[in-house]
């Protein structure tokens, strides 16, 4: 396959053959996910037992969910039989239809999310026989520093909101690996359409701590001219489209931009992020469908973090996670351990190559956990156990896990650690002070950018506003320039 031949040099393959690689992206008849697992077809003979699934599973010792057949064997059987009862085919506008005299229903979901790709174990040590894209010391250290910076950024801004210095904040705690590793695997030409829990991508691309603070405080230096709530970052020069509060609307936007990139023949793709909750929106389905049909170079990254505010994924959908949905729409998909920075990096790297060189969309489902509350307007202990949160915060922290890996490689130490943490903290506190004291955007910016050129009615309104301010100067805030 194109991918294998191009990148076999950069891929460390601990297996003797290319078997591992093909497992990574199996394009076999059953798609990416079920290559080693029983398929979705329930054989007719088990139907009597379905009435009492518990008895069946008790007999076989398996859970009901794994009552599946080896899909590779069954489908290949049908394809390779000589002219006989099973080889009847129909030429249909959508493709070939293969008939079967057996009535088989595709089973619904299992309770297990299969084939989650990971490279580092829980202690940050490389798993044997793993395939991944090697990362240099420089990149790895930058990745770790960025992840730690993101953690500190989140902690300090969250505290600032609690102190009443900013009106709102939303943390990325627990999802640092997804943010940073995906950004590291992309280039700065790739266009990013975020949801709102991906400031790490912007951080990686060079958005400074001061720029983050400026947006949160809505001051004169904010690129958004103080028009949006905190965390609604956006920066043209970083190819990061302004965060919009609406859920999942960015997904079809990304497909549209990807289509444009393809028409422009650019060596770049569009990347969009969303959570497990966002995949319930109609926009998700329309976008994936379109991306497949238009063959657009877009990477869909779903942060499946278990919670959509207070809605757990079990109340959000009943499919086997999000990766099967991608598959259902004809989009190549993979499930990844979102807290494994190395696995995320490898998956996004591979996805980007496929998207651009093969003009296809790719879906990555990153399994993770939303350690923080949904936002500063939420108290998640009201709907989930505090010890569950603590366990994910401590035992499954992606930042610690990656640190252990770079320490094992001799690229990091405790001195570097404390130096980084204290310097970032100081830099942040200073940035907040500067941002807080800075002037707000001037009053004329209230009326600009509604349209390309300011229309006459808004010019009149501004004039009226200025007259009112002139008549009542004492009522006008001191930090808003006139």
């Amino acid at each position, binding site marked *: 396959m194109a991918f294998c031949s191009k990148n076999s040099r950069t891929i460390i393959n601990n297996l003797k053959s290319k078997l591992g690689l093909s497992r990574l992206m199996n394009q076999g008849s059953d798609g990416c996910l079920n290559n080693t697992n029983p398929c979705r077809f329930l054989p007719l003979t088990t139907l009597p037992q379905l009435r009492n699934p518990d008895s069946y599973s008790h007999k076989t010792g398996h859970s009901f969910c794994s009552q599946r057949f080896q899909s590779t064997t069954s489908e290949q059987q049908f394809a390779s039989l000589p002219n006989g009862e099973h080889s009847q085919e129909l030429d249909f506008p959508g493709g070939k239809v293969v008939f079967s005299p057996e009535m088989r229903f595709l089973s619904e979901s299992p309770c297990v999310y299969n084939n989650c790709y990971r490279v580092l174990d829980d202690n940050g040590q490389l798993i044997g026989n793993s395939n991944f894209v090697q990362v240099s010391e420089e990149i790895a250290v930058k990745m770790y520093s960025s992840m730690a910076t993101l953690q500190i950024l989140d902690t300090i801004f969250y505290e600032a909101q609690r102190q009443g210095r900013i009106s709102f904040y939303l943390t990325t705690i627990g999802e640092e690996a997804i943010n940073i590793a995906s950004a590291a695997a992309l280039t700065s030409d790739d266009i990013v*359409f975020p949801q709102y829990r991906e400031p790490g991508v912007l951080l990686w691309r060079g958005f400074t701590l001061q720029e983050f603070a400026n947006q949160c405080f809505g001051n004169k230096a904010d*690129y958004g001219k103080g028009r949006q709530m905190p965390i609604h970052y956006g920066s043209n020069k970083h190819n990061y489209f302004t965060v919009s509060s609406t859920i999942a609307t960015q997904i079809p*936007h990304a497909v549209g931009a990807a289509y*444009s990139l393809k028409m422009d023949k650019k060596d770049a793709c569009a990347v969009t992020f969303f959570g497990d909750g966002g995949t319930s929106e109609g926009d998700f389905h*329309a976008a994936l*469908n379109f991306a497949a049909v238009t063959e657009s170079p877009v990477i869909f990254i779903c942060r499946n973090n278990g919670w959509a505010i207070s809605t757990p994924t079990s109340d959000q959908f009943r499919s086997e996670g999000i990766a099967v949905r991608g598959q259902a729409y004809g989009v190549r998909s993979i499930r990844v351990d979102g807290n494994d920075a190395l696995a995320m990096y490898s998956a996004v790297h591979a996805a980007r190559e496929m998207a651009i060189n093969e003009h296809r969309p790719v879906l990555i489902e990153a399994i993770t956990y939303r350690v923080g509350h949904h936002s500063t307007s939420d108290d998640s202990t009201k709907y989930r156990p505090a010890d569950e949160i603590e366990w994910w915060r401590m035992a499954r922290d992606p930042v610690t896990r990656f640190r252990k890996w770079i320490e094992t490689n001799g690229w990091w130490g405790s001195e570097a650690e404390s130096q980084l943490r204290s310097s970032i903290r100081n830099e942040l506190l200073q940035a907040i002070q500067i941002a807080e004291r800075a002037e707000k955007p001037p009053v004329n910016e209230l009326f600009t950018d509604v*349209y*390309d050129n300011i229309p006459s009615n808004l010019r009149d309104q501004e004039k009226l506003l200025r007259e009112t301010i002139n008549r009542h100067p004492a009522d006008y805030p001191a930090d808003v320039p006139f």
Partner: protein
Amino acid sequence: MLGVVRQKMLGQSLPKIRPVVSVLRSYSSAAKQMTVRDALNSALDEEMSADPKVFLMGEEVGEYQGAYKISKGLLEKYGPERVRDTPITEAGFAGIGVGAAYYGLKPVVEFMTFNFSMQAIDHIINSAAKSNYMSAGQMSVPIVFRGPNGAAAGVGAQHSQCYAAWYASCPGLKVLTPYSSEDARGLLKAAIRDPDPVVFLENELLYGESFPVSDEVLDSSFCLPIGKAKIERVGRDVTITAFSRMVGHALKAAEILEKDGIDAEVINLRSIRPLDRSTINASVRKTNRLITVEEGFPQHGVGAEICASVVEESFAYLDAPVERIAGADIPMPYAANLERIAVPQVEDIVRAAKRACYRSVPLAAAA
């Protein structure tokens, strides 16, 4: 009427002699005739030819030549990348169009009717209209959403709503409502060239209607300014504002009124947002009476906004209360006899104008 009007000026310096509209149309041998359909098709063709960033997207726009044949021949000429047939999901292709516009292309997104745009309205409002403001100018959206709007003939409640008032209430959008072929060509070209998102409301029943077009209109650089209304008929006694198909009704009403000695001034709004308040108010200050006509629902309609504007700016000039003629406050019925009385008729406009002139008028319309 239209043949006599000098096309250069936008209705400001019209000659006093106004022959009857329908007679003139068939006698205007000097000007070429063009249907609104052809006007839209030629505008799309010329803009796509001039700018490679312009592309068309929608259901049935390609192979089928357009659900109403507006995009006839374009797939053949420009290929499938620039004339894109889409799967059936308005939310999808509206969002994708907005994404393409964010990147820098100039999509023209077609809704089979604007009733279906409701499935995509979040993208039109939250992703297109507000983006330039919310991003502080970093994300402009040079997109056009176009398609037939309002009632057709016998298509029932879910295919007959007029969306002018809904879209025109949203800052960040521009909303255009062409009537004649000249309007269609000039306004569509202006919309495609405009860096802001534009909602372009056509009318299915106007597609087949022919209007005279001058050479200037036929030129590929022809463009009409957005936000300027056109005075289709100059008058002294009462101002009638209308847009889209209702302009035709208003002109017919004006002919009838003339026989009764009422000289009506008919304003073709052309642009609902921005609304040409100065032209409307100047007209009302001259005639002192105002009737607004629209096809859509009366509450919170375009007429309500015009009435408020006139009350705010020209109250002292009014000699009679402003009257709004609108569609009936019901979902559109299907039966032809009911549909006829659910939409404004010429007689409704005539009676309203007479009421504004304090003439005695019979009460309700006959079915």
